[in-house]
Structures are given as structure tokens and as C-alpha cells.
């Protein structure tokens, strides 16, 4: 393993940064797997290729994070079957098995992406130097994914608003409930299976972050993403209000 002279102020900071990278890499690999499954749900050859391309882009993000983590000697754990990521993956598969391309797009490109972009932006601002640049640049790439799918979802909403809203609502409760529990401001009830020491959420102060802000920013981005698709505020506020906190 190549190692650099990256300085951590304390062992606590090292552990938190390790856990942040572990969550990011696991999340990207979930994204990669989701896009790979998604490619199977698509008939249009161009869109199929695009899904594979997206899967590859998530793979590259995972590799980028992993390479950097190795470079600075972090202690990374990858677990696609952990408590929350495993449940997210299962929800995704439920829809991909039904060849429901739109549902898959909603989960991956709106819900998971909102959380990823918000988390990477916050971490990018909190960390310094190389890790900061890495998180910010990946957040920017994820934003492009989100913008692209917003166009598709907006068209889908316009075709049949009641049906689209019904579908979105069902997926919201299936998927966002997990992400809301994952990011709840209290300690995880059982280990998430990715963090290695204390619950990451309660240790974020070692890198000048806190879970309340990160969760708030993620929900705000999710709310804005719903606005951009054209989901009425009356719906989105009700859905957000019904999430666990």
C-alpha cells in the first residue's frame, strides 16, 4: 500500500475520515450495481448504453475514493449488505425486477443522488486539500446525473401526473424511509455494518461536521429535486413530514 504523509489531528479524526470514505465507496458501489441492474430494464439501445456508462461512472467514483483512501492509508470497509445499504439495494431490485425504469431512475438519480451530492459537498467543505477536492469534484459529476434524469422524470410527470405522483409516493416511502433512518440524528440502533468504530453520525464533530446539518442539507436537496421535476409542494412537504427523524 502506497502511503503519503497526510496528517490527522487525532485517531478519532482518522477513524471518522475512514468511515466517511467507507460509506462513500459502498454507496458508489451500490450505485454501480443499481445502474448495472437498470441497464437490464431498458429496451432503448441508446439508453441501455447510457445506463452502462453511468454504472461505469459510479465504478470510477468508487475506484477514485478507494485509491485515495489507500494513498493516505485509511482503514476502509466495504459492505454492500450492511443494514441500510442492503435494504436500499433490495428496494431497488424490487423495481428493477419489474423492469420499472422510471422507478429505478427515481431511486438512484433523485433519492440516492440527493443524499450523495449533499454528503459529498458537506464533506468536501469540511475536509482540506486532496480529499476536499475529490469529494467536491465527484459531487459535481453526480449533479450532472441528477440534472439529466430530472428532464426525463419531468416529461414522465407531464404524461400522466396522478399516476406518476402515486408511483413517486410509493417509492418515497420505500426508499426515503431507509435513508431517513440512516441519517436520523440519533445513533443507529444497530451497527450499519460499514462504520468500524463509534457510530459515524455522532463522531462527525472530529471533522467539524454534524449529522443535523448533513441530514438537513440532504433533505433540502431532495426537496429541490422534487420541485425541479414538478412535484407539487403540497405533496413533497407531506411526504417529507412523514419520514422518520
Amino acid at each position, binding site marked *: 500500500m502506497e502511503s503519503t504523509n497526510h496528517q490527522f489531528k487525532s485517531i478519532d479524526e482518522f477513524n471518522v475520515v475512514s468511515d466517511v470514505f467507507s460509506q462513500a465507496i459502498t454507496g458508489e458501489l451500490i450505485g454501480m450495481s443499481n445502474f448495472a441492474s437498470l441497464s437490464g430494464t431498458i429496451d432503448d439501445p441508446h439508453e441501455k448504453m447510457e445506463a452502462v456508462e453511468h454504472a461505469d461512472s459510479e465504478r470510477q467514483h468508487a475506484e477514485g475514493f478507494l485509491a485515495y483512501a489507500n494513498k493516505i492509508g485509511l482503514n476502509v470497509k466495504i459492505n454492500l449488505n450492511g443494514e441500510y445499504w442492503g435494504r436500499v439495494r433490495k428496494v431497488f431490485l424490487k423495481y428493477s425486477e419489474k423492469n420499472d425504469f422510471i422507478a429505478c431512475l427515481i431511486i438512484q438519480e433523485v433519492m440516492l443522488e440527493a443524499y450523495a451530492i449533499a454528503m459529498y459537498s458537506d464533506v468536501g467543505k469540511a475536509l482540506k486539500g486532496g480529499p476536499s477536492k475529490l469529494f467536491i469534484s465527484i459531487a459535481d459529476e453526480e449533479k450532472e446525473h441528477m440534472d439529466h434524469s430530472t428532464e426525463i422524470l*419531468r416529461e414522465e*410527470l*407531464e404524461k400522466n401526473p396522478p399516476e406518476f405522483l402515486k408511483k413517486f409516493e410509493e417509492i418515497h416511502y420505500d426508499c426515503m424511509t431507509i435513508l431517513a433512518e440512516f441519517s436520523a*440524528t440519533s445513533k443507529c440502533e444497530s451497527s450499519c455494518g460499514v462504520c468500524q468504530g463509534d457510530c459515524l453520525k455522532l463522531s462527525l464533530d472530529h471533522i467539524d461536521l454534524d449529522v*443535523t446539518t448533513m*441530514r*438537513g*442539507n440532504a*433533505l*433540502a436537496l431532495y*426537496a*429541490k429535486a422534487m*420541485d*425541479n*421535476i*414538478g*412535484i*407539487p*409542494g*403540497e405533496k*413533497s*412537504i*407531506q411526504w*417529507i*413530514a*412523514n419520514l*422518520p*427523524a
Partner: protein
Amino acid sequence: MSANHKLEQLDFAVIGHQESWNDIKAFINGMRSDDVGDLSLEQVKNTFGYIPPRSVFKMKVRSKTDALIHGVYIETFIEPDKLGMQHLRTNITKVNEAIAVAQSLNAKIIALGGFTSIVLEGNLSTFNTTETKITTGNSLTAAYILKGIEKASKKFNVDLKSSNVLIIGATGDIGMACTNYLKGSVKNFLLCARNKRRLEKFSNEISEGGCSVSYDTDLSRLLPQADIIISAASSNDIAIEHYKKPVIICDAGYPKNLELKIAKTEGISLFHGGMGHIGYGYDFNPDYTKHFYRYPLPHIGHGCVLEAVVLAFENKFENYSNGKGNISNLKIDDIYAMSIKHGLELAPFYNSKGLWT
């Protein structure tokens, strides 16, 4: 917000915020289904200050003329404990985002409710180029305050012409409008605000018009002389002590906490001013009224909100109340007349203890 281009045009939008975190909690828990249970105050605080402004319910309002108009309520999620100057930039952003939501919904006129008009300080230039018009609603608010004072004085046989009228927040938009309107109808003005230079300038203008004026930045020096008080200041630190008895108080400011600051209410007839009653009712969809509606009678609303409703009934889409110090007596009379035409009248007198008996 670029979505939903095909929406029908809404007549009006109301932009507002809640007065306390407990109000936000009640509102949010009102949206939660029974099986997920209520959120605690802490959980609500940790989440909803981050949520960008959005439409929360749609409204239909009926006029005496049978007209029916459609509107929307947009919650800014301005945090009730962050109204101070240090949060101004965040709050302006939220109000601007809320205006953008109203525009994306094709609202023809926007009412800036409560604190949201104050944060913009009349700076609406960014939005003037669009089709959507914006009003602070302060003309109708002033009209309801003034009608309230007139009616309450009659009720207690108080002669306005021989009364000392204290205006707290005299240099504000509503305070100036009320003072200007009452010129020539009262014995003496007692004007109060914190900024001495502005207060002095405005008081001089009023006295140059031939009115008797005393002014002071220290409220306690004016209170002992006041027969009637109009409070039109958004402040938490206004204390009503050592006042003259009896006294009529119209509390039109926000947050509504004047009563809490009055040690003994003996000799005080206090009502919440600037409020109107929608005679022909309204429907909300979804209807959360039971979770946030706090008035002792149905169909009560703020003058600032009702101004946009009245203008929409009249198809008069213009920036009717805009900026600070631009409310003329004519504007007050006109909007009040329009309000009456559509069955929107001064609300019955009430305060936190309920309706006046």
C-alpha cells in the same frame, strides 16, 4: 423552479412563516399519519429549518359578489427564532425563493405575510420585470387597524379628537400610514421607535403639518399619557408598564406577545389588530386548519393576506402596497371599500383570551 409549465394561473399566492417552533410542530404533525406518530419539537427543529420554501395548500376564497378565486399558501420555513439582523441574508434568500415558487405556479399577485415584507425592505426590483405583482398588504392592514381603533373608541365612548394616541413603530410602513391617516383626528400623537434620527425626522414632518406631537425612543416615557395605543412593531422587547387607565390597545405587530409583557391587564382593552373576517368563507386543500388555525372564530385572516385576496377579486393586479412610506390615505380608503364590497370586514375584537365580551 422550472416545472409544471402547463399549470392553470392562480389568482394569488400568500407567502408566510410560522410564529413559533411549536406552530411548525403542530403543522408538521398535522401532516403525519397516525401510524408514524408525532415528531418531537427537537426533531421538527432539526429538519424543517432546512426545507426550501414550498406550496403547502391551495385555497379557494368566495366573495359577496359570488366570485371565486384560487390561491396558494407558500411556507418559507423562516425559523421563528432566527428573525434577527444576523439572519437577514438567509431570510431574504428564503423570501426570494418563495416568490420564485409563486411565480412558477403562475400566481398573478403575491401577498408578503408577516415578517416576509420586512426582510425585503421594499426591495422588489428583481421581481418587477415579471408578470407577478407583489404587495406587502400593509394598506389593508392599516385600514383594519384604523377601523378597529375607530370602533373600539366608540364602544368605550372615547373621543378620538381629545385622545393622546401612541404609535409604537411609528417610523415603520404601517406606523407611518396610521399616523398620517389620523392627522387632524386626534389631540396629540405620541410617537415611538428605536432609531432616534428617523423618529425625529418623521415627528417633525407630522408636527409641521400642524399636529401636536411628542416623540421618544423610550416607550416608558410616553405610556403614562396614552389613551389609545397602536403597536405596529415587530419586536420581542416591548413592555407595557405604568400606563394610563383606561387604555385601548391595538396589537398589530408580530410576534404577538404584547399581552405576555403586561403584568396586570386591569384597565386595558387589548385587541389583535389588522385582522379581517372573510364573510363568505374559504376552502383549503389539503385542509390543515385544525393544526394551525388559532383564532376564536372561523374565517379570520391577516389584513396583509386579505389585501391580495381583495385585489384578486377586483382583478387589480398591481404592486398595491410597495416599499416603505408609500401608503396614502386614498389607498387605505380604496382598499377598505373594495374589501367591504367582497364581504371582507374588520374581524370581531379578540385577544389571546378569546373574543371580547
